[in-house]
């Protein structure tokens, strides 16, 4: 069975807040759900499938279904960190194709900025986490796991800090047009490499923002999509893969995107050159560079040259990416950027991105997420969408 053509994304909503000291996390989930349903022209009563990940408080999906008083016949709590929401779209398409639901609601929300936690804090291990004894004493945090990938990439392929910096520069060019973006100032390569080193070789400006907020998506079966008044955004391919430590045979030069991307392209039946726009998970600049290589947009090891000189800037380069400013400049709600990746891809396919960054004739787009720690264990998820 394929999900190609079996489901459409009809609702997409990004919460405008970036700091929400006076709201609760469930309230943000609700506001995002309301926004996405209104965008689609549907109501809460239409929802019969609900998808959430580890950011949903309490008993996850059960607590959120209770809070929003939904009446669902399908629930999915797949948790793969920041890539969860891309996987939720694929799983929603599978459930719709199998007749398990007709209107799937996906929500993400969180307040890491107000609550004061980010990827810079030491990880807290729950009991029975198998690798905790062999990580806890060593100060493994989010950024130094990604930093070790960057260091190895530089060692093997000669990638430079200036090349990585171009990814932030491109994101900042896009963010200047986004009134909700946290960082709207255009930055230069010199600004990035001149910002303080946090974990070698990653600088402060190689990192994403820490923001409150969230987002929601509504995925429906084709008959419902055609009855609505929104542009038709069809799911045509998806792939997911977990890449981890391979029993100690460590190889930091590639990510789960190699296999999730291959699966998505095979299902969609399109080639790299068909993709007009990409949303690429951008927790750090190195995340983008490795994923672009692994998805096949350039040769392994050539990512540095590929991203340089504005190649990712809409209207300038060959592969416009993250035209909302991405996690690097706009928004990384709950320290998880997966849902905003899909939302901006939907905007592009609808022709509803900011005019300064809208890709002309954007008919096929790709969104890719990485959840977890790139240098340790992570889940990659790729989604290819087409405007009908």
């Amino acid at each position, binding site marked *: 069975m394929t999900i190609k053509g079996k489901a459409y994304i009809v609702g997409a909503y990004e919460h405008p807040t970036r700091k929400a000291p006076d709201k609760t996390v469930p309230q943000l989930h609700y506001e995002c759900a309301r926004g996405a349903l209104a965008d689609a022209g549907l109501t809460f009563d239409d929802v019969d499938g609900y998808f959430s990940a580890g950011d949903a408080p309490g008993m996850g999906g059960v607590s959120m279904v209770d809070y929003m008083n939904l009446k669902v016949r399908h629930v999915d709590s797949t948790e793969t960190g920041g890539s969860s929401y891309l996987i939720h779209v694929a799983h929603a398409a599978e459930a719709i194709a199998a007749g398990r639901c007709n209107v799937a609601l996906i929500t993400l929300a969180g307040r890491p900025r107000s609550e004061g936690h980010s990827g810079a804090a030491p990880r807290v*291990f729950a009991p029975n986490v198998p690798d905790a*004894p*062999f990580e806890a004493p060593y*100060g493994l945090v989010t950024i130094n796991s990604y930093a070790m990938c960057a260091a190895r990439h530089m*060692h093997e392929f000669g990638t430079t800090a200036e090349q990585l910096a171009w990814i932030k520069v491109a994101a900042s060019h896009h963010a200047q047009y986004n009134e909700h973006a946290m960082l709207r100032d255009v930055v230069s390569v010199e600004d990035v490499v001149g910002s303080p080193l946090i*974990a*070698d070789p990653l600088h402060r400006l190689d990192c994403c923002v820490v923001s409150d907020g969230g987002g929601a998506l509504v995925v429906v079966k084709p008959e419902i999509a055609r009855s609505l008044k929104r542009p038709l955004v069809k799911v045509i391919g998806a792939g997911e893969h977990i890449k981890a430590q391979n029993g100690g045979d460590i190889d930091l030069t590639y990510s789960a995107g190699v296999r999730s991307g291959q699966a998505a392209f095979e299902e969609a039946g399109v080639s790299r050159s068909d993709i007009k726009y990409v949303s690429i998970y951008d927790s750090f600049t190195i995340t983008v560079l490795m994923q672009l290589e692994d998805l096949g947009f350039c040769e392994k090891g050539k990512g540095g040259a590929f991203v340089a000189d504005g190649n990712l800037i809409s209207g300038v380069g060959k592969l416009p990416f993250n035209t909302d400013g991405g996690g690097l400049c706009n928004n990384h709600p709950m320290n998880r950027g997966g849902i905003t990746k899909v939302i901006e891809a939907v905007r592009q396919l609808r022709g509803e991105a900011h005019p300064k960054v809208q890709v002309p004739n954007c008919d096929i787009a790709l969104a890719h997420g990485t959840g977890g720690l790139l*240098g340790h264990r992570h889940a990659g998820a790729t989604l290819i969408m087409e405007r009908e």
Partner: protein
Amino acid sequence: MTLMAQDRPLPTPPIYPDNADFWAAANDGRLMVPKCGACGKTHWYPRPFCPHCRSDDVSWIEASGKGTIYSVSATRRVPVPYAIAYVTLDEGTTMLTNIVDTDLDQVRIGNKVQVVFKPAEDGQKIPMFKPVQGASA
């Protein structure tokens, strides 16, 4: 620049039934590595079965304590900077660790390193690595 590694407070690792022998040996200054009797491979992090071939025939061997830095990152914006690293042991597997007792600005991928043991907050000894003098790659 120079950034000399300093000892820092280390969280005590949770000790589970399947790794108690490892931590006891560490307190005696010995680095143990799990090795499979069926496929012959070492693995990391330690498990009571072999993640390569799924055999239960796994036993601890005493490692030489020698290895090579596979990747490293000096983590700076913290109260006591430290270098996190993956070190490939001469016995084959690659472990997460810290590089200590050296100038963190001079640590490089490919450096040869030797195990040392640093005490955690409750005294449990933790295996870490320092560069072998004059043996950088």
